[in-house]
Every structure is written in structure tokens, then in C-alpha cells.
């Protein structure tokens, strides 16, 4: 079983700081000045005071909610800790259709001041994750790559983006420095000034400009923190001992910030090509997690990151040293060559080997982007030792050297912090062990031959399956920073293992904006009245209103509206034959509801649409839903897990999601888990999901669904009846909307004919459209086209409904007609509806003698027969049976005789 959420929740302890300074008698609540947060098992304490900007646990791990803390208060019993906040929105929380209102491409770190009223601004103080830094509106956006804080420029009031009123932000001058954080050196790093800094490492910068300095500071700062948390098994950190105290304070905040953000790294990486994780962050997380002995987390983090970066090979070194549960050692051999062939700017590898406090050996492989090919090559060599039997240490050293060199420009502390470590005793011990394992692997590699397939596929599946193996005592973490080249790293990983591994993994570029090229000359507008009518009658044109579905509209509207109002969830099943306006009605309902929510009559909601026919596999439904909800692209299994989490966990600020599932029957799978999930989510307490499903058959739930699925779908059903002729007539009239192009009788004829046959509105509109064309052609002058008359409609109806078989027989060649007669003659003789070619051919020959035609040869006869078979006047067996193939008529005998008689006369 594949597991995705192996991450354990960090247990945090929240304590009020100080005495309650105020007591509200009415509400019976105490006000508090600050809140102390600490992580269980750690001493580090973060203090959160009102006025600070905080991250709040949300339904999306990658993007915790951002808010400004206004006030703390608790009730008398001191059990509940509450906080008042001012919300900020990330762009991803803005409804999809409103994003365009921004008018520019958003900055990935940008947030918006929320002026809406739909969200409760009271939160549980225990959902606070940590603090974050804010920069107000007057600072320009920094260059991509140097951003580490969040920016507020605009406010969002559910309808439009406005320039942020500076007054709103003024009450917290302390936490909003006017410029991005000033250079701060580790010792003096104050908790407020070091936010979740993700300053990228720029080794190329020769002069310590403020940002780099600060980043360097934060880098070393975190390092110090880690060592503090780790009870100093890392001797190299002693240099930072001075900073331990203050640094340890921010540790938990930092950890939470980064832990909460790490899955988001992938997302952020996509958004901004230049942005990277610093080693500091990476190490910080890794070590923090070690402190908590949460091996699984780090693994998960690493998997998600490397997954997103789509470096199959970089993942494998970690697999190579990890043990499978049964003690068998896995060893992907081919990998080294792959990574060498690869042209993408991978990082070089830094391996830090140390034995943790718990006696667990860890190998932390940290890949940092490299700038030149030399470093790249060395990195490849550096990664090989973990796979090859060669001495791991010997080759790892040069890589470290390179890193040290590069780093020395960046921060003077780095090399000291990193290089000595690998020389430590414990590290050498580990490398020795690894070497032993690799020797073992050598023997077992054949056993592993099928296993290494998933090794170089960075698919979620492989990664997750590996997490189970990680339960063993060894653990490897591979961290990579993103390559500088945005294009290559923007590629999503391909799901299927590619045969040509040395090539760039095939994938769709993530940033490719799919579009059809635009035309040079704009499309011409309809000229005359018939053109106008034709444009209005096209199925695609959206009518002003949907006539004849008022009752259905009202029912669906009421259903969705009540669910949105109550904040609950529910399912509805809608059936009806094609072309009865099911999808159109729902779209109309949603349009009206959107309008209502714009007018603040109902809370805001999101509308998502999927179509069973527009996906290649039922499980793609998850992918599409998730992509439309959060803009993420992940594999189906992962998407299912994310959605499951999203819909089952409570979160503040959640708006209702309305999901339309079109062509439901195609989401059928043998285990029906897709349908099950779709109908199960709305029943969850915190889901706030409304599912509207559409299919053609009324009894679909009874026919194809197993009981537990059908039961969850519930009994809210609706069926769209085929349109009656009056309704069809009304539809056309309303579409034409006073464009006088049709005679009244002509319209009635069309509607009656279609209503009698199928009641499909599309058919009706198509016939009308064709009739306008015929009318236009039949007119002698293009200018003198009159109304569409009965005759035109008749012609169009004939064209669309009449069977072409009779005409086809009439137009067939003489021998073909003769053959058809022979077939009928033979059928009559045999009293069966089937005969072999040989039998028919005897008749054919006799008939041609009667007709005075020269008899044809068998070859020709077969050719005639095949021609009739190709256009399906005859049904034939496979032609290799030659003379013995059986012949049947695909038309009734009467039709054939009628058609042949017409030819004779």
C-alpha cells in the first residue's frame, strides 16, 4: 500500500505568556499579551505577540494561511485559546476567475489584505504555526531569487484588488520594517527579524550586499540552531555557540515555518525559476526532524522535493544505501550513467555523514545547484560513490572541496561547518558501513534487477513505497536545490518510466501556456439576417436565458444555494438523454449563484467542472480536481490523497466547493473507488463540498453502482425529460430573439419532427442552421434571401434523417445492383437470410444471362461483393474465406427491391 501522509503531526505546546491584562465581563474572556509556543521535547520557545504576522495551519500544507494577529483572548477555564486575526490571502486562494483582475502577473510571494466578510476572523490560537515577515506596499518587489518574505501591496475585497490603505498596516510598525530585513548577523538575530528565511545561495556574488549577508547570517544561524537542538554531536558548530541561545528561541518558529512550507517548495519553485531552498533550510529541517526522530517526515520532504524537481537519479543514491525490510540491499546500478548523460544543471552533492544521537545512521545528501560544468561533473562523481563500490569517502571529498570553495564567497562559516564533518570518525564509520553494504549489493544486484526500474522514476509511487522501507534503521535524505535554468526544471516528471533514460525525461513543460495561435485577420461578423440567425442558432452560443427548464433550474438552484448557505455538502444526480440541457442548466445555475455571491447575498464558493469523457482514465479525475482547486500538478494517487486530506480536515476560511461531474458513467472502475470518493467527501463534516453529477441513464446508480456507492449518492435525483415540440419551438424562438428568419410553420415542423425522434435540442438547432444555409443557396440573389420556408426545412430534414441506403443502391453500378438481386434471389431460394458467396455467384451468373450481360469472372464478382461490403450494404465475413465467405444484407430486402425498382423505371 502506498502511503503519502507518513508525516506525523508535530505536537506543539501553547502557553499564555504573562498575566491576563484585561477581562471582558460580557464575553467572560481574558485578554493576553503574548503566547508562547514550543515544540514538545524542545526547549525552544517562540513568543507570538499581537501585531505580528503569523502562519496559521490550513487545509493546504504547502500554503499555510497568513494573517496578522490582532488580539489574544482566552475563556475563564483557560482551556480555549482564541485569537483575533486579520486575514491575508495568497493568490491561490483568490477564485480562479478573479485572478485576471490583478492585471499583472502576481509575485509568488505576494499576499493580499483581505477585506471580505465571509471569513471568521476568530481562530483557535493553537493552530498558529509560527511567525512570518511582512513587507508593506511601498517596497518594490525584489528580484526573483532574493525573496524570502511576503509582500502586501493590494487588498482584496472579494470583488476587486485595491491599493492597500497604508492606515490599515500602520498599527504594527515594529514588525513591518520598511525595507527587506536588514543584514543581521547570527548573534544578534532577533526572533522577529529572522522569519522563515529562504534566501537562496548566490555564490557568484563577490561583495557582501545586504541581502546576501543577511542570508548568510540566517544560514549560519540555523546551523547553530540545529546544533543546539541536536545536543551538539556536531563539533563544527561550536563556532556558533554564542548564537545558540537566541537561535534556539527561533528554532521552533523556523522549523514550523519551514516544515509547513516544504511541500510548498515545489510549488514555489515552479512559480519562480530563480528561487531555491538554501542549504540552511534544508539542513535545518532535516536536523529538526531528527531531533524528533521523525524519519518519515524528512523522507517525505525529500521525496516531494526531488519529485518535483524530476531528477530520478538524484533520488536513487538514497535508495541505494537504504535497506529493504527483509535485509536485502537495493542498488540501482544504471543510475550513475544516467546522471552523467543528463544535461540539466544538477547540483553537486554534498554528503554529510554522521551518526545521530539515537544511533541511527544518516546520510544527508544535499544537492546544491552548481554553476559550472566542472562542479557538475564533480557532483556526478560525487554521487557515484554511493552507488558504486568505490571508496565513498575518497570521491566525496573533492565535491566537498568544491562546495567549500563556492561557499567561502558566500559565508565564511560554511566550509568550517561542513568540511570537517565528513572527516569525523563517525562519518568514516558510516562510509565504511556503506562500503560493506555496497559489496553485498554487488551480490544481490541481480535480484534487484526488476526493482531498479522504479528507482529512477521519480514517481510518487516509487517514492512512497520507499517510505515503507525507510522504517529500517538507515535513512537517506536527498535534497536538491533547483537548477538555475527555469526551463528544464519546470518540466514535470513523467509518470511512466522512460525507456530512453539518458534523454531529458519526457514531460509537458509546466509553464507552457496551451493556446491556439491567434489569427491575423479577425473573424468576420455576421453580415445578413440569415448569418445572424445562424450564429444565434449555433449550439455554442450561450442564450440569455434557458427557457423550458425553469423547474429544474429552480430545484438545482435551491439545492446548491442551501448547501452554500449552510456550509454543508451534498450530492445530486441528474439524468437525461443527450441534448436535454443538463450541463447548460447547471452552468446557468452557477452563473446565477456567482452573481448572487458577488452581490454578497450568499457566501463565496468555488465551481469546478470535470468531464468523464475528457479524461483518459477515471483516476485522472483526482488530478483534474486538484489542479483546478490548487493549480498543482501531481500524480493521480497523490492527488487522491491530497484531496482526501483537504476534504476531511477542518480549516478556517474554507469556502464551499461546487463540483460538477459530467458523464459520470465513465468514471466507473471495477472497485468504483473514484465514484466512492466523490460521493463520500461531501458527507465529511468539514468538506463543504457539493457534488452535482450528470449521466444519461436514469437508473445508473442502481445499474452500475455497488451499494455503498449508491447509498452515498443519496436520493437527490433529477431527470431531464426530452423536450416536447412546444419547448423546442420556444427554445428556437428565444434563441432567435426577434431575428425574423423563419416562418412560424417551418419552426413548428422542425420541432415536431425532432420531438418525435429524440427531443434533442442540439439536433433541432442543427437542422435550423442547415435550413438557413439551404435558404441562402436557393435564393437567386444573395441579397434577396427571404425567410426560411417549409420547403427549406423539409430539405434539411431529408438530408439529416433520410437513410442514404436507397440512394446508394440507386447509384451503384449495374453489376453491383445485379449482385444485390442475386443475393435476394438466393435468400429466397434458401429461405435463410444468409448465403455464401459461391451460392450467390451462381445466381448472379444466371441473372446476368437473363439480363443479356456478359457474365463476369469470379475475381470480378468478388471485387463487386467487397465494394458492397465496404459501404455496408452487405455484411461480409473476413475476405480470406474467399468463395466461402457468408453474405448478409444490411438493408431490408424490401428497401433493396424498392431501390432497384426505382432504377428500372
Amino acid at each position, binding site marked *: 500500500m502506498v502511503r503519502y501522509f507518513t508525516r506525523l503531526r508535530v505536537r506543539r505546546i501553547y502557553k499564555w505568556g504573562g498575566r491576563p491584562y484585561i477581562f471582558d465581563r460580557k464575553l467572560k474572556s481574558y485578554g493576553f499579551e503574548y503566547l508562547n509556543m514550543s515544540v514538545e521535547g524542545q526547549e525552544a520557545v517562540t513568543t507570538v505577540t499581537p501585531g505580528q504576522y503569523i502562519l496559521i495551519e490550513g487545509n493546504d500544507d504547502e500554503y499555510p494561511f497568513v494573517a496578522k494577529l490582532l488580539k489574544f483572548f482566552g475563556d475563564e477555564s483557560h482551556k480555549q485559546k482564541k485569537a483575533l486575526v486579520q486575514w491575508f490571502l495568497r493568490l491561490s486562494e483568490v477564485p480562479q476567475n478573479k485572478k485576471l483582475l490583478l492585471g499583472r502577473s502576481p509575485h509568488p510571494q505576494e499576499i493580499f489584505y483581505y477585506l471580505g466578510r465571509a471569513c471568521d476572523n476568530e481562530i483557535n490560537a493553537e493552530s498558529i504555526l509560527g511567525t512570518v515577515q511582512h513587507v508593506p506596499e511601498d517596497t518594490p518587489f525584489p528580484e526573483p531569487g532574493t525573496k524570502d518574505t511576503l509582500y502586501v501591496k493590494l487588498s482584496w475585497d472579494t470583488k476587486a484588488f485595491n491599493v492597500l490603505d497604508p492606515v490599515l498596516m500602520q498599527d504594527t510598525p515594529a514588525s513591518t520594517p520598511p525595507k527587506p530585513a536588514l543584514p543581521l548577523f547570527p548573534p544578534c538575530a532577533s526572533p522577529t527579524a529572522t522569519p522563515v528565511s529562504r534566501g537562496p545561495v548566490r555564490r557568484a556574488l563577490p561583495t557582501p550586499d545586504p541581502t546576501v549577508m543577511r542570508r548568510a547570517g540566517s544560514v549560519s544561524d540555523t546551523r547553530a540552531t540545529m546544533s543546539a537542538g541536536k545536543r551538539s554531536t556536531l563539533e563544527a558548530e561550536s563556532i556558533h555557540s554564542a548564537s545558540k541561545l537566541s537561535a534556539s528561541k527561533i528554532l521552533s518558529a523556523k522549523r514550523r515555518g519551514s516544515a509547513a512550507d516544504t511541500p510548498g517548495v515545489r510549488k514555489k519553485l515552479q512559480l519562480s525559476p530563480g528561487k531555491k531552498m538554501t542549504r540552511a533550510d534544508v539542513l535545518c529541517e532535516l536536523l529538526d526532524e531528527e531531533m524528533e526522530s521523525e524519519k518519515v517526515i524528512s523522507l517525505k520532504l525529500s521525496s516531494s522535493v526531488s519529485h518535483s524537481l524530476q531528477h530520478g537519479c538524484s533520488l536513487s543514491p538514497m535508495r541505494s544505501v537504504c535497506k529493504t525490510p527483509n535485509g536485502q540491499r537495493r542498488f540501482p546500478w544504471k543510475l550513475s550513467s544516467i546522471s552523467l548523460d543528463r544535461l540539466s544543471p544538477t547540483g553537486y552533492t554534498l554528503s554529510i555523514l554522521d551518526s545521530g544521537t539515537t544511533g541511527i545512521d544518516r546520510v544527508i545528501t544535499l544537492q546544491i545547484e552548481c554553476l559550472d560544468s566542472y562542479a557538475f561533473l564533480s557532483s556526478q562523481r560525487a554521487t557515484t560513490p554511493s552507488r558504486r563500490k568505490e571508496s565513498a569517502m575518497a570521491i566525496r571529498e573533492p565535491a566537498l572541496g568544491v562546495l567549500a570553495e563556492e561557499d567561502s564567497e558566500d559565508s565564511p562559516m560554511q566550509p568550517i561547518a561542513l568540511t570537517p564533518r565528513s572527516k569525523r570518525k563517525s562519518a568514516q564509520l558510516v562510509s565504511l558501513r556503506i562500503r560493506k553494504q555496497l559489496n553485498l549489493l554487488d551480490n544481490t544486484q541481480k535480484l534487484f534487477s526488476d526493482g531498479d526500474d522504479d528507482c529512477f522514476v521519480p514517481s510518487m509511487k516509487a517514492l512512497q513505497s520507499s517510505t515503507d522501507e525507510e522504517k529500517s534503521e538507515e535513512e537517506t535524505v536527498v535534497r536538491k536545490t533547483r537548477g538555475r535554468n527555469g526551463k528544464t526544471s519546470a518540466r514535470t516528471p513523467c509518470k511512466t518510466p522512460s525507456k530512453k533514460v539518458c534523454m531529458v525525461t519526457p514531460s509537458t513543460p509546466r509553464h507552457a501556456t496551451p493556446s*491556439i495561435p*491567434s489569427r*491575423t485577420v479577425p473573424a468576420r461578423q455576421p453580415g445578413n439576417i440569415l448569418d445572424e440567425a445562424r450564429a444565434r442558432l449555433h449550439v455554442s452560443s450561450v442564450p440569455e436565458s434557458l427557457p423550458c427548464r425553469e423547474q429544474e433550474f429552480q430545484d438545482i438552484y435551491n439545492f446548491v444555494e442551501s448547501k452554500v448557505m449552510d456550509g454543508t455538502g451534498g450530492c445530486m444526480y441528474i439524468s437525461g438523454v443527450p441534448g436535454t440541457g443538463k450541463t447548460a442548466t447547471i452552468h446557468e445555475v452557477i452563473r446565477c449563484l456567482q452573481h448572487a455571491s458577488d452581490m454578497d447575498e450568499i457566501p463565496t464558493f468555488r465551481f469546478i467542472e470535470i468531464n468523464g469523457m475528457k479524461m483518459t482514465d477515471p483516476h485522472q479525475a483526482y488530478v483534474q480536481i486538484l489542479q483546478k482547486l490548487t493549480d498543482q500538478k501531481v500524480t493521480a494517487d497523490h492527488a487522491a490523497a491530497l484531496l482526501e486530506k483537504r476534504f476531511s480536515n477542518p480549516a478556517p476560511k474554507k469556502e464551499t466547493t461546487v463540483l460538477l461531474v459530467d458523464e459520470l458513467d465513465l468514471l466507473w472502475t471495477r472497485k468504483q473507488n473514484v465514484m466512492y470518493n466523490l460521493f463520500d467527501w461531501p458527507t465529511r463534516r468539514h468538506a463543504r463540498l457539493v457534488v452535482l453529477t450528470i449521466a444519461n441513464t436514469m437508473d445508473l446508480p442502481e445499474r452500475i453502482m455497488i451499494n455503498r456507492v449508491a447509498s452515498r449518492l443519496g436520493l437527490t435525483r433529477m431527470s431531464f425529460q426530452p423536450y416536447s415540440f412546444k419547448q423546442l419551438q420556444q427554445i428556437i424562438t428565444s434563441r432567435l430573439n426577434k431575428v425574423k428568419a423563419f416562418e412560424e410553420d417551418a419552426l413548428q415542423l422542425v420541432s415536431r419532427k425532432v420531438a418525435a425522434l429524440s427531443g434533442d435540442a442540439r439536433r433541432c438547432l442543427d437542422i435550423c442552421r442547415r435550413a438557413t444555409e439551404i435558404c441562402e443557396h436557393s435564393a437567386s440573389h444573395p441579397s434577396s434571401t427571404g425567410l426560411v420556408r417549409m420547403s427549406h426545412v423539409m430539405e434539411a430534414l431529408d438530408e439529416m434523417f433520410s437513410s442514404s441506403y436507397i440512394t446508394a443502391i440507386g*447509384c451503384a453500378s449495374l453489376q453491383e445492383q445485379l449482385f444485390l438481386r442475386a443475393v435476394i434471389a438466393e435468400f429466397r431460394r434458401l429461405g435463410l437470410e444468409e448465403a455464401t458467396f459461391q451460392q450467390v455467384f451462381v445466381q448472379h451468373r444466371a441473372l446476368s444471362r437473363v439480363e443479356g*450481360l456478359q457474365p463476369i469472372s469470379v475475381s470480378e464478382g468478388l471485387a463487386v461483393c467487397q465494394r458492397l461490403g465496404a459501404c455496408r450494404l452487405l455484411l461480409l465475413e473476413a475476405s480470406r474465406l474467399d468463395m466461402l465467405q457468408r453474405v448478409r444484407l444490411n438493408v431490408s430486402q424490401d428497401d433493396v427491391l424498392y431501390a432497384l425498382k426505382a432504377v428500372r423505371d
Partner: protein
Amino acid sequence: MCTLSRQRKGSIHELVQMILRERFCHQRLPEKPVGMESQHKHLLELLRRTAVHGESNSVLIVGPRGSGKTMLLNCVLRELLEVKDVNKNVLPVHLNGLLQTDDRIALKEITRQLNLENVVGDKVFGSFAENLAFLLEALKKGDRSSSRPVLFILDEFDLFAHHKNQTLLYNLLDVSQSAQAPVAVIGLTCRLDVLELLEKRVKSRFSHRQIHLLSSLSFIQYLDNVRSQLSLPQDFPDTKFYDEWNDSIKTLCEDQSVVDVLQRHYNSSKDFRSLHLLLMLALSRVSASKPAIKPTDLLEASRVCMVDSKANILHGLSILELCLIIAMKHLNDIYEGEPFNFQMVHNEFKKFLQRKSHSIHNFDKPVVMKAFEHLQQLELIKSMDSSTAKIQKEYQLMKLLLDHSQIMEALQKYPQCPTDVKQWAMSAFG
């Protein structure tokens, strides 16, 4: 004409061959499609509206093989692309059901031909699901007035209907029925029952426009067509030869034997592809020494075209094999078409040998068996049992894949056929 510039001196018949071969073999588009004016107008109008007004449409062109579906479409496209604003504004996408055998391949091909952004060089990256999502997204982003119309031309449309869930057809037709990028879906098929293949949702989205190409060509028109096909174009360099050639063609088409041959062809099939084959054979006999098509050439060509392939095979058989065929024929007569096995045939053959074997040796049984197997390889006889392994070769039930007339015709033409064998074949009972 570009071909004329390549003319070499003294080889005027080569030039003639070149011009006419291009007509017959290279599917050169005629100036104007013959006998399908209304269909031409309908299709042109439809595609013009897509190209100029951005109106989405779907249409099926249905007609038997060789009736000129592709020719009509290509003529329309040629005419459409001659219009200036249309030329750079349409994106034709050609698909063929025989090449794009499933939706995955078809999607890749569409993406490649549209040159969307996930195409690198000639390769389309991404999984099937990604590609589908990508294409749909691309089409969805477009709108009627600003994006270029895409013409999806689906050759062998019926084969696309066999793809899983008809996903591709559903999506293309759905786009054509919704306010997205303008598309025209043009299907070409020879199946008259193609609409029955479509799933109900797909069918509802199809506009039900069908253009039927059913030629109601009379024989007079057919003859005219033959004449115009064989005539040289007016811009032929050598006017003297031009006049001579066209006169000879005119007289050729008035010759009674030629008219008979053409009538026979017309009766058999009206399509132009088989006519071209016939004319091609006649044309290949034109040389420097014989600079015109004679009626005998056409007769000879017709004979080659009409020849019965099986009877031809019979001419190449050995006497023993022929005797076995005759024995089988008698068995067929006796048992009214019931299957036979080798043993029966051998007995029949032995009886014949005992009665009157003046010219035929007494063959050993293995030799006869070998001959029998050879006939099976030539598919003149066919085994009736599906599992051949179980039954011994001698007792496998067989059926003869030859008509009596074919056997008799072959015997007549068989070189130096022994008279007693001929008599045996004629006689009512073996």
C-alpha cells in the same frame, strides 16, 4: 506547367506519358471536380464559414471507395487556401484512422501538427492524460473571433469510432459545439452506417451533416470523361502532335470495340480509380514507334484487368495437380459441395488411373500428397477444421475454392492438356 519545362527533345511520347501518368497515378487534382458540384459548393461554403467567420462545424463525407471524397476535400481546401485572409488563418490537421490507430497516437499527431508548446522538434512530450488536458486547454482558451480555426480532417472516420470510449471524437465534436476555438471536424468514410457507430453522446454532438458522394454518372458522361482524361492539355508545346493525339483519342472513343470494353467496365464499377488503372495499362504501350493508343491496346489492357486470378494460377499447375483438382470437382458434384479429404481425392484419382491411364503415370501416394499440399498452399483448397493438429493430414476435411467455370476455362487454355484428362473433366461422373 512545370512538367513542360522539363521536356527533352525528340521524346514527345515521354512527355505525353508524363502528363497522363500524373493524372492517373499521382492523383493530380482536376481543375474542377466533375459531377459533384452541389457537394463541392456545400463543403466549400461550410469550411469558408469556419475559416472566415469562425463558426464551428462538423461534417461527414460519405461515399464508396474511389468516389472522390479525398479529391473533393482537397479541391475545396485548395480553393479555400487561395483566398488571401484564409491562407494564413487556418490550421489543417490531417489524421487517418489507419495510421492513428488509437487516441494516444492521434493526440500526439494533433499536437505535433498544431505545433503546440509541448512539442520539441518532432517529438511530443508528456503522457496521454497530459496531452489530452493540454490540447483541450489550448482549444478552450481560444475563442471564436481571435483564434485561428482548426480543420480536423479525419480520414477513415469509422476507424476512429472504434477507439476506446470515443474520447477523441467526443472531445473534438464537443469543441465544435461549444464556444471555444473554432474548429471544423471533417470525417471521410465509405461506410454508409457510420452514424450508428457513434455513441449516443458523441452522436448528439455531431451536427448530422453528411455529404454523400454517390456518382450517378451515365455512360455517356463516363465516355466523355475517358476522352478528357486521355486528351492532352491545350498548352502542350507541339501543336501538331497535340492535334494528332487528340484526334486519335476521339476516334478511339468512337470505336465500337472500345465502347464495348468501356461499357463493361462501367457496368462493373463507376469509380475512377479502376478506370485509371485500365487507361494506365493502355498508355504504357505508347512508344516512339507507336505514338497513339490503338483499340487493341485498350482491349489488351481490359483483358489484363478483367482476368480471373485463380484461373491464371491453374495454368501453372502440373498435370498431377490438375488431375487432383478435377477429382475434387467430381467429388463436389457427387456430394453436393460437402467437404472432402485427401483419401477421397486419392481414391477418385486412382479410379481414373485404373480406367484410362494412357498418359498419366501411376504416382506414389506420397507424391500425390505433396501435390495436394501444394494446392493447399496456393489456397485453391481450404481446410475446414480450425484445429489442424489433431487430425491426420490424409483425413482433414477440405473444400475447393474454385468454381466449375474456372476449372473448365483453365482446362481449355491449359497447354498440351492430355485429352483423356479433358474428357474426364467433362464427363458427368468420374
